[in-house]
């Protein structure tokens, strides 16, 4: 409902109003546009150029994209990275969200003892830098130190141990699980807040209706929390593109072993900056960034369309 403009504001001379708006909105809009929006557009623009060793730029249209997606020198690592990104995302959805939901459900049980303690402790890893987390787990899982091996041996699962981070087949999933370990706090908090939002009387009514705790969770709490789970999913989706930090700190820019842990973020970094195997290529880097942008755009649009429409259903 639009509020009528106050008389004071409406009677302000136009010049003054513009000056006022410039003062209030100027700084934010300028910084945001300059360093957030403009670089994005410039990058997309740059992706339509190519450059050579002399530093001159030549307009080539969509050639870079064609190369990226089809030329095997580029497309193989690109699709590899894209596929890995998908696996990374799936591991998060399959592991992080159910754990987050379950923990949120447990933490929101009425009369739970030590609730504040658990909440603080379980959210702790999310506060840490990814570098720390990556390295700490690298050490723990390292066969040299033997802590993980020892812990598994203690529960009789010693035979399970392998240098997971070093094997091409398991490196990516291991890294994904480390990321889940760190970031489960976010879906946990968001879903927890959502659960708290459910009026107590609703739960009481369900108890009077004859539902036990588990059924209440399944039939009442979960459906009402679904919009938040949708939000968590899209945040995970977008956030996974930033997983560069973790992979880089554990595996370096080459995302080994043998590019098994390469995701689009590391691929972008390598393409743009180069490394010991290749020279930096800003235009191809820009192309990779543009592709990533469109992937994210599609994901966000899907979210806004599907989830946001359903969200209107559950007003209290």
């Amino acid at each position: 409902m639009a509020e009528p403009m106050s008389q004071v504001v409406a009677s302000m001379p136009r010049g003054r109003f513009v000056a006022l708006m410039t003062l209030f909105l100027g700084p934010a809009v300028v910084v945001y546009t300059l360093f957030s929006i403009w670089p994005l557009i410039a990058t997309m623009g740059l992706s339509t150029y190519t450059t050579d060793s002399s530093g001159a730029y030549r307009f080539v249209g969509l050639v870079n994209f064609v190369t990226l997606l089809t030329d095997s020198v580029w497309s193989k690592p690109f699709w590899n990275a894209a596929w890995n990104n998908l696996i990374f995302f799936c591991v998060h959805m399959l592991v992080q969200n159910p754990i987050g939901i379950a923990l949120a459900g447990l933490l929101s049980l009425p009369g739970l003892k030590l609730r504040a303690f658990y909440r603080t402790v379980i959210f702790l890893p999310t506060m840490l830098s990814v570098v720390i987390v990556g390295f700490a787990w690298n050490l723990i899982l390292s066969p040299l130190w033997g802590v993980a091996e020892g812990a598994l041996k203690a529960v009789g699962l010693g035979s399970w141990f392998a240098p997971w981070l070093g094997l091409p087949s398991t490196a990516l999933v291991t890294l994904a699980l480390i990321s889940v370990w760190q970031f489960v706090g976010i879906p946990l908090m968001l879903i927890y807040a959502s659960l708290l939002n459910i009026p107590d009387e609703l739960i009481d009514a369900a108890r009077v209706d004859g539902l036990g705790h588990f059924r209440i969770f399944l039939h009442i709490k979960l459906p009402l929390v679904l919009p938040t789970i949708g939000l968590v999913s899209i945040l995970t989706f977008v956030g996974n593109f930033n997983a560069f930090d973790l992979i880089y700190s554990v595996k370096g820019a080459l995302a080994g072993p043998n590019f098994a842990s390469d995701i689009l973020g590391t691929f972008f970094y390598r393409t743009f900056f180069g490394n010991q195997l290749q020279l930096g290529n800003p235009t191809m880097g820009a192309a990779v960034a543009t592709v990533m942008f469109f992937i994210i755009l599609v994901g966000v649009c899907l979210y806004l369309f599907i989830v946001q429409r359903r969200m209107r259903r559950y007003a209290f």
Partner: protein
Amino acid sequence: MFKQRAQTAGVQLILIAYSLLAVGPILLVVMNSFKARSAIFGSPLSPPTADTFSLIGYMKVFHASLIVTYFANSLIVTLVSMGLVLLFGAMAAWALTEYKFRGSTALALFLSIGIMVPIRLGSVAILKMMKAAGLNDTLTALILVYVAQGLPMSIFILSEFVQQIPKDLRDAARCDGVPETRIFFEVIAPLLRPAIATVAVFTIVPIWNDLWFPLILTSSDTTHTITLGVQQFLGQYITDWNSVLAALSMAILPVVAIYVVFSRQLIAGLTAGAVK
């Protein structure tokens, strides 16, 4: 009744187990950073005793790296960015909520695009811009980028808080003839203090822990932030377990300390923001 007790016990067991999983690795790292090398490998799971206690790793870190500089850099960048995000964001949130003009909705939408789209994708152009402006390898470059990154979310959160402020206060000030700018700075802004916790959670942590932009925008050792500094130190001294563990612990402990002290406000801020 018995079923109740068993259920409660089961719940507590699960939560304790997960808490151990969450905190265990951190405790392990910190504990072992205070031990001599032989004890780290010999008995990794036991805390340092009088025999095994050693600060050799920490001394190495202080000598071989500019860890204090890194810390100071991170502090400057984070605090200045936070301050600017709050100031610019509050002004923008106020203007967009209070003064509806043609295009204000479009502007609000424009500003909220940044919530979903990672700013990193524009890094190619950002680096070019910084180089052209002579800001390459400065803390200023980081601050500008982080402010741009933090504005959309904070404007979103602050708008919600601004809407909660009773309109009567603004009307009373207007009746008294107070100019609009003063209304914002002296009436509205102080009332946004509760919002600081929420904005802080969403802004400070990503900035402090960020690896990407320091990596791309800073090249010399003296401009590194603590995240980048520690990462490079780790890469360099990877076989020196004492130093590595000490560096990790030094990066962990300040964050944990602040977190434990402010955990209630932090979590309240996060849940308040989430509810919106």
